[in-house]
């Protein structure tokens, strides 16, 4: 197609470097950039010749804020980064600090953490599926997904008091024991969830239009994906069999039986299939966690770090002192540095925490999987159509809160 610039007398936007092409600003306000991502596209007709992601519109300075907060306050901040998977952020941060301290949460706490992580993965993938399908034009899947997500968020609200930013994991364990009947509710949800996944698959997997839109689209090879640092389902969609939960287990993931879905075709369709199968695998983990949940405390026996129980605080002098000291001064962490990576719904979520021996972290860096996954986007989209860009953005499942931090 020839030049696509409109009448020059009233031309207000910049012309392309070659007059056959056009510069298209997709975002920061655009229905399908999933937040405030801006993509600068050079298009020839509808073919994308070059693409340049421009980020930073959601920069919140969380990494700087960390340096001014006590460790126990930082968990709340971690929630706010990847707002679709707060439990994973909490998990990463809490595990990193626990390793710095040299303590470990008791088994029950670890299992509940795993349970919540997998529920969170389900809810995060639900948002991905809904928006991805909506981008491709299937409207109803979006609402079906949000129906189930609502169920999961209600479970979170019941256990953590908040739908999204629960701040439920604590260094050394969990904030509270789960409320009465909560596990039954989870069981009820989990039992019906397999059918629900079948329902989504009915609407999309067998649909020829959906297959046409996704198969062979936005391909990225195994080598490119690894070199660009893609992780999570985006990497597994390219045929790399790598899952931190299985390969470098944390928080007793080694005790669970689950499969790691891998697809080799490296396109949108492969990433779709991987995530769809992860729904089922996550649900299996949820069921295992429910079935084999150990009894016992949910907080580590580390009185200088973990807040005492409420009734102890009211009856024992010692507990009251610890409570007062932790709340007012925080707890100091031995100097050192750790890098704790976990498998978030989007990939490798790494927390690099440096301590200088005080009660506040010296430096916290978050390796957000979305940032690395975003680097793969230009590679996937160049030479393809604008409609494929939309499909590709959906398929790498980025969260801008995590990219910009």
């Amino acid at each position, binding site marked *: 197609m020839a030049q696509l610039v409109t009448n020059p007398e009233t031309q207000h936007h910049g012309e392309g470097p070659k007059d056959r092409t056009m510069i298209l600003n997709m975002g920061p306000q655009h229905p399908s950039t999933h937040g405030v991502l801006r993509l600068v596209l050079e298009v020839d007709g509808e073919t994308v010749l070059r693409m340049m992601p421009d980020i930073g519109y959601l*920069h919140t300075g969380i990494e700087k804020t960390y340096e001014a907060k006590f460790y126990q306050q930082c968990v709340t901040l971690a929630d706010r980064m990847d707002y679709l998977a707060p439990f994973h952020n909490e998990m990463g941060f809490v595990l990193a600090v626990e390793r710095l301290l040299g303590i*470990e949460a008791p088994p029950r706490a670890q299992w509940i953490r795993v349970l919540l992580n997998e529920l969170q993965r389900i809810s995060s993938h639900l948002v991905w599926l809904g928006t991805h399908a909506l981008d491709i034009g299937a409207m109803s899947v979006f609402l079906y997904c949000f129906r189930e997500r609502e169920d999961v968020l209600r479970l979170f609200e019941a256990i953590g008091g908040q739908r999204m930013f629960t701040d439920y994991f604590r260094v050394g364990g969990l904030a509270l024991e789960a409320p009465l009947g909560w596990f039954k509710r989870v069981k009820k949800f989990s039992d019906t969830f397999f059918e629900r996944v079948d329902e989504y698959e009915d609407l999309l997997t067998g649909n020829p239009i959906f297959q046409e839109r996704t198969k062979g689209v936005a391909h990225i090879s195994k080598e490119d994906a690894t070199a660009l*640092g893609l992780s999570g389902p985006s990497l597994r969609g390219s045929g790399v069999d790598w899952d931190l939960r299985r390969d470098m287990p944390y928080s007793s993931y080694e005790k669970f039986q689950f499969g790691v879905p891998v697809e080799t075709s490296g396109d949108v369709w492969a990433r779709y299939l991987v995530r769809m199968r992860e729904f089922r695998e996550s649900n299996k983990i949820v069921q295992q966690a429910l079935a084999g949940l150990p009894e016992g405390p949910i907080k580590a026996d580390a009185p200088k770090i973990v807040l005492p129980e409420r009734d102890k605080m009211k009856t024992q002098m010692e507990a009251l002192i610890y409570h007062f000291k932790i709340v007012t001064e925080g707890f100091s962490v031995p100097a050192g540095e750790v890098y704790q990576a976990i498998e978030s719904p989007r990939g490798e979520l790494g927390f*690099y925490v440096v301590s200088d021996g005080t009660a506040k972290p010296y430096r916290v*860096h978050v*390796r957000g999987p979305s*940032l690395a996954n975003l680097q793969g986007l230009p590679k996937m989209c160049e030479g393809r159509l604008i409609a494929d860009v939309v499909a590709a953005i959906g398929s790498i499942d980025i969260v801008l809160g995590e990219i910009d931090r």
Partner: protein
Amino acid sequence: MPLAPAVTDLEQLKSRAPLDALLGWGPEAVQGARLDRDELTIDVLREAIRDVCEFLRDQQQFNFLCDVTCADWYPTEPRFHVVYHLLSQAKKLRVRLKVKVGAHDAVVPSLTPIWPGADYFEREVFDLFGVKFDGHPYLRRIQMPDDWEGHPLRKDYPVEGYR
């Protein structure tokens, strides 16, 4: 689980494969090492970082660059500790490389020729710390606006910003 004390003796750390191989390949590149909380940190000479990474990637199967970041130890020198986290998916092993640079020549060779994925991470370090990456194809601010003054994650950066 009490913390084991950190080990910094190179001889003692020879049991760790990547360090051993690295010392065998070019001992002058390694300035020191530290095993703390089961994580191996190798201090690498700035000029050698690119070769070290290439060696680790090609010879030691550290195929995946997880992260590039930096910590600012302001009053002390060398001030910036640029940190690389490498992952070997085959060996299921991580290693941390550290390059220390001073305030006045805060320049590190870029890893983008080896891992194109280093691009955004290095830009972010440049943006927030002001450490330059030599050979980075497009070193430009990534998070902060283009006309921003200063580098916010430096420890001497005023919390309210420069006025």
